[in-house]
Structure formats: structure tokens, C-alpha cells
């Protein structure tokens, strides 16, 4: 038995890592899942387009806490992280010893032989590094202890698939899901060593032992870097699987391919993170909406998220005969008040400013005044049977019966305005969404972009500033272009400099604006294609008031069919979310 001060802490990054071998040296292992606040060091050592996980690992290993790290050549990014650490280790900064094992991408017998030779070489290297001798009995005990034969999921479960997920994300999923959560990502630590030799003491033939071990390691459900991924079908074939949260990491491309092929009959939510702590926090809206729309939102989480309106839900008195919906967006706060017959009696919009709660109060006060004028009454909060908040700032609105995501609210609002619509396209100030609806207005699937300005109202604002046009002026400018000018940059920042160069070339402003309209429409149409969106399309959100973007969207959505398609724009597109919230309030 080692003295505790001699026990080394070894990090690893891949589920195929022979961590039981390290137990054979008496050392502790830890799967690296660091969520860093910044990548200052990593960005100085590797090109920024490596995935956030790789950079997190590099950033984390610079700090204290790990004696060594064991990599496999699991992906190009991790190979390069190991290379940087090896170069740093050569100059003793940081003091972490990096090991790497070549991992086959196939699971043939030859491949297992090859991997077992690498493991044996690793054992030799680790003996030299640690000054200790490999203990086969301890290794076999670790294999036995690692077996995880518990029935996972019971009657039903939610799976997290795709790339390894940050701890904060796993925690949020656990909090929102009313079902057990199973980790089926590439960072899963489920192990099965069912037919390892049952012997005590030192095993005489190390190669044979490691061959058996390598076979077991390679027989795990394959991650996407393995060539044959047929066995991954067992994940989605399991009838106990009720829903999937599919995690991808920016700049890790493996899992986007599988996500595109996920069976339609399983509810799937795709979440994309860059492995920073902030990115996990931003996903709350989507997680809540997903679990909500699939009827598996944990009741505790629902209560925790809801801030009650004065009395309690159902605590209605006769006077309460109106319902309010508040859409607390990043740019504007919108309020709609409806009566018991679901007719709109007031609709107002105010700028959100810096404080969501203040903006909500002001908008509601304006709406009450307008509703009062409509009804010929002096209307107060007492007349509201229920208030529901939605939008980015919904959790900050203090006087609501419930808060519901804008995904659900936009679908509900859009359905009430255009019942035949099957797809909502919402382009807001900071994000854009595509929502496929059921015939009853429920959410079938949705996709959301909130990471990048391209494809949002912010993109239009940037371009309008560059062209020295007002945002309203820009809306009509591109409707009659003389020719098509491609805005080729996908990034808003680069697009700005591209527009400047087009101006410098003397191109007409109306042609450039049309190019901008097509660029934003192309981005959103791509999202719609990926979701399998179907017409009729309804466009909501502030950008729907921009006729140029609406026209461009019709062209882009119709490209596959060879002709432009119609995009329905309701009279008050920016109020659709608030209307949906009011309709939900009416059902409480």
C-alpha cells in the first residue's frame, strides 16, 4: 500500500484510456472536465480554432493538481494539446508529464494486439516515470471494481449523447429532467470487464493479459472517432430512451454528423457549447423549453423557476378576467393583454434598457392604461387573472404566475394568428429560432442560434450602421436590387469590413443591402433545412418588419423547390411571443 503522499493524480481525456493500469500502480485517475473562465494561456500556445475542451484541458493543466496526464490520439486537437505539453515539459513548464497511447480506429483482433503492445510499452514507461512496479493483481481488482452492471434508466431515461459534456450542463439536465439521466457521451465512464481472467497475484504473461484488456476497452460502445460506429445504434434502439440532449462542442466536428442522422421519433435537443462555464449557463432556456415541451420537466425545477403572481395560481376572483403576457427580450419588452375570449385588448412595446424588471413594470403599466382605454375601465393589476413572462429576461420579471420559454410562447402565439402555419421563424435582436409546430401549435422541434451575430437583428444593425442607414430605412432599400452582390463572410465582423470594401468599389447601396438580406436569410434558411422545416412559414420577431429580409427568406427557403416561397408576416410580428404568453396565462 502506498503512502497517500506518494499517490499520484493522473488526468485522462478519453474513455479508451487504460486507467485500470494506473490503478495497478496505486495511483488515482480523474477524467478531465475543466470549465475555464478564459483561455489566455491556451490561446498563446495553440491556434484559437481548436475546440474549447482541448483549450480547457491545456489551461487547466497549467495549474497545479495533476502529476501527469495520459492522452490517447483520440482526435487531432488532443494530439496537439499533448504536443504542446510535451514541448512545455521539456522546459519544465508546466510540471505535468504527458503520456500518449496510439489508439486504433478499428476493433479487429489485429487492432487489439496493436493496442495491447502500446499499453505494455506504456507500463514500461510509467514504471520508469514513477519508480514503481506494475501490480497485476491491483490492476485486476480495479477491472473488477470498474464493472458497472446496474440497470441504467429503469423504466425510462433521458440520455446525454455526443461529445463529453461540461459538469454544469450535466447538472442542469439533471435538475430539469423528471427522468433519470444517462451519460452516453464520449466522456462516459461506464465500464464492462466481464470476462477478464479471475486470478489473484501477479499475472505471468503481461502481453496476453493486456490483449484481453485491450479487447474489452475496444469493445465499448464506439465513440465517433472509431471507424465502425454501428454499435451506437443500440443507444437509440433502446425503448427506454425517452429523450436525448445531444451535446456538441464548437470546433469538434465528429458529433454533428451523428446528430444529423438522429431518428426523428426520439425528441432530441442539440446544445452546442465551447466548454466555458458561461456557455453552460446560457443553455437554461433551451433545456427548460425542451423538457417542458416533452412533458418531462421536473416539477421541482418548474416551481424553482416560477415566481408567483401575488396570490397563487388558480387563486382567481371574479374581477380577474384579463390575462397578460410579457416578452422580456434583449432589445424590447412587449406586453399583450387579452380577455377571456382571447381577444387582444392591449399591446405595447418599450425598450428593455438595462433592467428587465423595470422595463416589464413600465410596459405592463402602459398596457394596463391602453387596455383600460379599450375597455372603458380604469384597469389595474387586480384585473389580471394571471401574468406569464417569457423571453430572455423572463426569470427577472417579479410578478408572474409562471415563466415559459419564448420557444413555446412563439409557437403558441403564431398558431393563434395563423393556425395553418407549421414553422415559425423568429429573428430577434440577439438570436434567431426556427420552430417546427404540431398542428395544435405545440412545439415539435426547434433550433436556435444565440452564439453568433450572423443571422440576427444585431447583424442588420451593424450593417445599417456601416451603410449609414437607419434600420427602418434599410428595411425597404434592398427590395429592388439591380444585381446580386454576395456578402460572402459568414462572420458579422468580417462582413462589416466586406461591406466597407463594397462601398469603396462604388457598388449601389440597394444592391449591398440586398446582399445583406440574402446573407441573413441564408443563415436562417440553413437552420430551417437542418430542422426539416415545412411550409407554411410564419415569421415573427422584430426583423419580420424588414420587408427585404422577408423577401430574401422566401427566396432562400424556396431554393430547393426552385421557386420562392411565401413567408407569412402577421400584423404585429414582434408581439407574437407576448401573445403566446398571454394565451398560456389564460390556460393556467
Amino acid at each position, binding site marked *: 500500500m502506498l503512502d497517500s503522499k506518494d499517490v499520484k493524480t493522473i488526468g485522462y481525456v478519453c474513455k479508451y484510456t487504460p486507467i485500470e493500469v494506473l490503478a495497478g500502480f496505486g495511483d488515482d485517475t480523474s477524467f478531465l472536465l475543466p470549465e475555464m473562465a478564459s483561455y489566455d494561456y491556451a490561446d498563446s500556445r495553440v491556434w484559437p*480554432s481548436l475546440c474549447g475542451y482541448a483549450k480547457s484541458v491545456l489551461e487547466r493543466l497549467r495549474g497545479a493538481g495533476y502529476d501527469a496526464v495520459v492522452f490517447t490520439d483520440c482526435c487531432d486537437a488532443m*494530439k496537439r494539446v499533448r504536443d*504542446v505539453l510535451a514541448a512545455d515539459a521539456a522546459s519544465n513548464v508546466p510540471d505535468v508529464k504527458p503520456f500518449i497511447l496510439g489508439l486504433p480506429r478499428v476493433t479487429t483482433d489485429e487492432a487489439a494486439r496493436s493496442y495491447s*503492445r502500446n499499453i505494455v510499452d506504456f507500463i514500461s514507461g510509467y514504471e520508469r516515470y514513477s519508480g514503481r512496479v506494475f501490480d497485476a493483481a491491483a490492476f485486476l481488482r480495479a477491472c473488477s471494481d470498474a464493472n458497472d452492471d446496474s440497470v441504467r434508466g429503469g423504466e425510462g431515461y433521458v440520455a446525454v449523447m455526443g461529445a463529453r459534456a461540461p459538469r454544469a450542463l450535466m447538472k442542469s439536465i439533471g435538475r430539469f429532467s423528471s427522468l433519470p439521466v444517462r451519460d452516453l457521451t464520449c466522456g462516459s465512464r461506464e465500464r464492462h470487464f466481464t470476462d477478464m481472467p479471475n486470478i489473484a497475484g501477479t499475472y505471468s504473461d503481461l502481453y496476453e493479459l493486456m490483449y484481453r484488456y485491450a479487447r474489452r476497452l475496444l469493445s465499448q460502445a464506439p465513440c*465517433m472517432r472509431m471507424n465502425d460506429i454501428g454499435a451506437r445504434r443500440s443507444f437509440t434502439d433502446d425503448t427506454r430512451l425517452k429523450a436525448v440532449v445531444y451535446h456538441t462542442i464548437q*470546433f469538434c466536428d465528429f458529433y454533428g*454528423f451523428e446528430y444529423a442522422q438522429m431518428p426523428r421519433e426520439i425528441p432530441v435537443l442539440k446544445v452546442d457549447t465551447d466548454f466555458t462555464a458561461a456557455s453552460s449557463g446560457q443553455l437554461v432556456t433551451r433545456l427548460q423549453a425542451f423538457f417542458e415541451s416533452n412533458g418531462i420537466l421536473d416539477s421541482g425545477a418548474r416551481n424553482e423557476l416560477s415566481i408567483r403572481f401575488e396570490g397563487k395560481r388558480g387563486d382567481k376572483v371574479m374581477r380577474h378576467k384579463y390575462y397578460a403576457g410579457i416578452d422580456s427580450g434583449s432589445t424590447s419588452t412587449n406586453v399583450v393583454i387579452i380577455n377571456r375570449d382571447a381577444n387582444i385588448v392591449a399591446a405595447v412595446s418599450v425598450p428593455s434598457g438595462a433592467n428587465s424588471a423595470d422595463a416589464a413594470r413600465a410596459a405592463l403599466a402602459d398596457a394596463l392604461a391602453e387596455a383600460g382605454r379599450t375597455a372603458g375601465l380604469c384597469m389595474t393589476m387586480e384585473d389580471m387573472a394571471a401574468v406569464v413572462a417569457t423571453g430572455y429576461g423572463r426569470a427577472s420579471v417579479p410578478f408572474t404566475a409562471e415563466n415559459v420559454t419564448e420557444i413555446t410562447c412563439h409557437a403558441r402565439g403564431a398558431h393563434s394568428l395563423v393556425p395553418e402555419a407549421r414553422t415559425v421563424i423568429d429573428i430577434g435582436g440577439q438570436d434567431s429560432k426556427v420552430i417546427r409546430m404540431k398542428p395544435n401549435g405545440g412545439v415539435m422541434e426547434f433550433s436556435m442560434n444565440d452564439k453568433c451575430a450572423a443571422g440576427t437583428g444585431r447583424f442588420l444593425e451593424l450593417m445599417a450602421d456601416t451603410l449609414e442607414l437607419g434600420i427602418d430605412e434599410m428595411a425597404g432599400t434592398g427590395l429592388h436590387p439591380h444585381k446580386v452582390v454576395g456578402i460572402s463572410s459568414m462572420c458579422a465582423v468580417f462582413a462589416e*469590413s466586406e461591406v466597407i470594401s463594397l462601398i469603396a468599389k462604388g457598388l449601389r447601396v440597394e444592391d449591398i443591402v440586398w446582399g445583406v438580406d440574402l446573407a441573413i436569410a441564408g443563415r436562417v434558411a440553413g437552420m430551417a*433545412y*437542418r430542422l426539416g422545416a415545412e411550409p407554411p412559414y410564419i415569421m415573427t420577431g422584430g426583423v419580420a418588419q424588414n420587408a427585404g429580409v422577408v423577401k430574401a427568406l422566401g427566396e432562400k427557403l424556396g431554393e430547393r423547390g426552385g421557386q420562392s416561397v411565401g413567408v407569412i408576416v402577421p400584423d404585429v410580428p414582434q408581439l407574437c411571443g407576448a401573445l403566446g404568453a398571454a394565451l398560456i396565462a389564460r390556460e393556467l
Partner: protein
Amino acid sequence: MDVVDFFGETVSRNFRRHPRFTRGLLRLGCAVQQRRLGAKRVDARLPSQIFLEQLSVRSMRMALSQPSRLALVNMFAPAELLHAMGLHPLCAEGFSSILSGGKCERGFLDYAAEHGVPETYCSYHRAFIGAVLAGLVPKPRFIVASSSVCDANTNTFRTVAAHYGVNEFYIDIPYEVTEDSVCYVRRQLEDMVRHLEDGMGHRMDKGALMRAVRNTNASVEYQRKFIGELASRDFTNYVAAEMHRILVGHNLLGTDEARTFFRMQYEDIIGSSSGGVERCVGMHAHKRLLWCHVLPYYVEPLKEILDFSDRYTLLMSDLNYDQQVSIDETDILGSMARRLVTNHFNGSVERRVASVTRMAKKLRADGAVIFCHWGCKHSNGGAFLLRNALKAAEVDTLIIDGDACDRRGTNAGQFATRLQAFLEVLNGQSA
């Protein structure tokens, strides 16, 4: 509108609804380009360079014209085995370069993205997948890919194989550069031969294989001699030629035509071919630039600075410096396995760093440009380590990013500023 713009727009407008027509258009485009190059001296290209471009577009046209002999491959699929079976390899990266050259890559990139291919994925592979899914590429007889050198091979060829319903032959190249690894790959190449024989219904002609091997060995020998001369001479080069050489030096290796090209290239540099003399005899009048990774051949300022320059010699990309392994006629598959395992892009980045540093010294490079191609984690991840090593070897180095396939991915103005500033530094230091 120039003819290439017209071509790009016609392809982009039609491929979604008329993929077969578009395929025909692409073949026609290759044929026209091949004839145009053969008809007259279009600019300062050397004879070997004209032949190189003709060879490159011809190979694409042949591959698209004969689906029964078509093999979709990556850059490192063992070419000699394919040629010995009479197959036409169509390389993913090469095909996407042709699309980009015809200014029509954008539609296929978007098409791939609509089908879920991440936008952070290598644009060569993304455009290729888009073209396959859109029906531009005919169903192939074979799909052969190696795991090396980058991750994209696994996803791309798995996706393509599933689309066509064609079994992929996958060569797993180990990370470790050892004799065990060579043996492991050798056994896979034995399986590959059987796979090709089963698919074609006949045995591999040993004479055809030996001819391919001898062509490769002659090509390698000419390339060695060319590099030897390049070490002491300036050379007329241009950006697009480096890209064409990647195709010929990998997927066409083993053919009579590749052998002819490498011979002509050597003759050009020693000035024994007509037209080669006056442009190749300079001795270090130029600043000499090494290139690392692919080249964004369409960026106008880059072409203006480097193409046929009388100030700079674009020496070579490290992608054209990696196949210099002769094949032992008594152990053909073993030699080919060794070539795959020992390729300087395989394994740790230290191997590439050491090789490029040696290359810089051998070719007496004054400066180096490391191009970080969008989506290439394999190369970009090691960019700083490579730069540090080159600087330590007193080779001034610029890291510059962009996209060599997707024209949207490189801002020409910013590119020009960075490159020109680097060259100003380079010239100032040596003045």
C-alpha cells in the same frame, strides 16, 4: 462576367435540380481547361507546369467519366495499388479544389451544412460531401481512405460510403512510428489488395503493379534531384502549381504521367527543356519562401506577390515534401506501409517540425509561411510549435489564417496586409 464566373454561377444555379447536367458541365469545364492549356503558352508557366495542370484536370475528368473505374479516396490512399487495378482515384481534397477553381464551391458547402455537416469542418471535406450528397459525383466502384493524416477522413468517407451504399476500405494508420506499426499497416494493405480484387473480379496484374512501383521510384528519384537543384537555384513557381503538385505527388503517383511530370520538372530546373533556361538559372537573387500546408490559390494579392515573381521563389509546400520514399520491389506492400507510417504528418507534431526545419535548411529558405486552413485542427494545433522551431532555426515565419477552398473564408485585404508586412520585414532583415 468572365468565363469562370459564368461557369461557377451556372453550376451553382443548377446542381440542386440537375445534378447529372452539372456533372457533365464539370467534365466539360475540365476538358476545356485541358485544351486551353495545351493550345498555347498562356503565361510564364514552364513546360512541366503546363503539363502538371493538364494532368490534374484530366485526372478529374477521367474519374468523373468512368464510374465503373472510380475510387473515391483521400490523399494518402496507396495510389499504386489503385492504378495497378486500372482504377481512377478521385481525391476529396483535389475534387473540392476543382470546384473552388471553378468558383462553385460555395453552393456545395452550403448544401453540406444544410445536411448537418458542421461549418467548422474542413472546407475541402465539406464541399466534397456536399457534392456527393447533391449527386454531382457518380457512385464509385470503391471507397478507400486512411485514418491518417487528419480526423476528417473518418467522418467524410463513412458519410459518403453510407450515402452510396458502397463498402469503405479503411486503413488504420497507428500513431506510433514503429516496426510493429509498419507490420500492422502492411497486413491491412494485403487485405486491401484482396478487397480490390474481389470488387473487380480479377487478380491484380503483377506486371502492372511493378510498372506502377517503378514509376513511383523514378518519380521519387527525379523529385530528389529537383530538390537538390532547388537548394541552389531560384525557380519560377506559382501558387496554384503547388496545389496541383499535391495531387500528382500523391494520388497520381505510380502513373506514367506522374513520372513524366517529375522528369520534366527536373529538366525545367536544370534548364534542359525549352523555356526553362532563362527563368531558372538565377542563383539566390530571390527571397526564398517555404510554405506549410495548403495554399489559398485564389487570393489575388497572394498571386500578385508570388506568381512568377522576379523577387521571390515560392520553394515548396511541406505537403509536397512528404512522399520521398522509394518502394522496395521485393517488399512492395511493406514499403508502402512504411511510407504511410513514417509520413511526417503522422504521429506527434515533433516529427513534422523536425522535417520542415530540415527542409528549410536544405532549401535555404529565407522565410516560411504557415497557413492555418479553416477547420484543420491537425495542422493549426501545431502552428505555434512549428513557428517557434523555424524561428529558432533563423527562418522568419508568418502564421496566417484563411480558407484555401472556401472563398468566403479569406479576407483578401487583411491577407495582403499581413503578407506584405512580413515580406517587408524579410527584405529589411536581409538588406
